[in-house]
């Protein structure tokens, strides 16, 4: 299972609320791989995935609290990073 090293992911519902979040993740995490499933988008990456408040706010044109991600989040893998400006997962071995 060597190829599994430090894999993390975020899975979000495939809907209007999640779309700008997914776009923001794509923009801020060029190493991420976006996989579409029925009704769900799973974003895989090695090491770290970050959702930045600022990037999402630029996309939706209003204030956005990183905790709002809880509405669209389906699943995750990795150690959670959560503060006022970002939400993410990471693994560092």
């Amino acid at each position: 299972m060597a190829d599994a090293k430090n894999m993390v992911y975020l899975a979000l519902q495939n809907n209007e609320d999640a779309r700008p979040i997914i776009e923001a993740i794509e923009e801020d995490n060029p190493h991420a791989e976006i996989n579409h499933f029925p009704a769900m988008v799973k974003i895989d990456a090695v090491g770290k995935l970050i959702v930045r408040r600022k990037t999402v706010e630029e996309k939706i044109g209003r204030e956005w609290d990183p905790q709002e991600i809880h509405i669209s989040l389906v699943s995750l893998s990795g150690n959670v990073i959560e503060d006022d400006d970002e939400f993410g997962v990471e693994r560092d071995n």
Partner: protein
Amino acid sequence: MSRKLNLRERYQRMTRDLAWEPSYQSKSDIYPQMEFEGIKIEDWDKWEDPFRLTMDSYWKYQAEKERKLYSIIDAFAQNNGHMNVTDARYVNALKLFLTGVSPLEYAAHRGFAMVGRQFPGAGAQVACQMQSIDELRHVQTQIHTISHYNKYFNGFHDFRHMHDRVWYLSVPKSFFDDAMSAGPFEFITAISFSFEYVLTNLLFMPFMSGAAFNGDMATVTFGFSAQSDESRHMTLGLEVIKFMAEQHPDNIPIIQKWIDKWFWRGYRLLTLVGMMMDYMLPKKVMSWREAWEIYFEQNGGALFEDMARYGLRMPKYWEQTIEGKDHITHQAWGIFYNYTHAAAFHTWMPDNEEMDWLSAKYPDSFDQYYRPRFEHWREQAEAGNRFYNPTLPMLCQTCQIPMGFTEPGDPTTIGFRASDFEGNRYHFCSDGCKDIFDNEPQKFCQAWMPVHQIYQGNCGGATVPDVLDWYHLNFGVDNFDYAQSPDRQHWQQWKGEAAEESDAPDEAA
């Protein structure tokens, strides 16, 4: 202007700062379950909050989820949404879900209320209480969603009564009874870590993608809405393990033993989900094998690399699950096909197209071991000799699944293990299940074994119809092959007519 506290400080003030060091009563009287499992916690203040939702934010976000969900459930019912599923066979997956899984959500609700009261740290208490109420949400939203299906299909009608009695439902029931009757630390290791973090994706992600693929928008919605809570729960699972591991080195062997036990318990339980994915979805999303590779081998692998720093290793017998991924779902479906006359859902043999899909997804096992058997059964059924096994199966004392899984390395021999305890002999399907018994024989010898109970006359009588009556299972309606079922008749009736009048207004709505 007030100085704005950051998220972390603010959350600390809102939760653990509410607690104090008691002096009129001893801590061991207030939290009496902290010692007996042998877990050593030196400092609850080191607890890392898995997420930081205060009640006001919790209400805000959860209410938004609930509003969305119930508007879809309403629309689904008003528009006869059940008519949009790919095929009525699909509905049998939901029967298994409501009778087998939803009651576990309830059990989780009560179990987390218990640990939410028993852990001495306020941070841990609040995280567990929030999970407790989330789990209550899940059981209730599932009932409300599936309520519509209950109005049009059989097998759902007395799910709670069945969960306490029906033979295969003792598989999920005993799983949660086991966790809840353990101490708080084992419970949270079992459910938050082993089940939620390591395995729950295998329950929800394929199930819900399967529902989406098969036109069941109501189930997709409750499923993903529940999953949005689940990601908080998974985070709790990971934090709990890290916290226990960091608190004391003596905790490591205890935790490892629990991980070994609960991984195997969960793996056996999820066989039912795998069988649903491979056989019960008319339109398949992914095979059990693929799901196991993504969600256990890949993510579980990364997780346990993470855990290595604490001296925790992959769960015992994980290698057997890698081999088993080619076999267990076919074996389980074979068992249920044999005993569907005593089940509250229907089974059937795959059609040619489905057989081909299984061959393609299981190139190393399906054609060699299962296809010939299944084709034979299908031919027999078509010739009017649909086979139902008249003898009651022997159940594994631990997982309670009928003994039908094969030996590692030999997919033609049924696995069989036994242990003696206090003058009685107990039987198991695998090394994993035998180990679990041998570690706690006093506990597992108590199990309410459905087949034993029938033989002892505790289940309504001596004949199959007596027992089914005691199960509240409607004979000839809820059970037997899909081909003869009233569900199928109704479906054909509805669909046949719906096709003719597709332009007419739907007056039934």
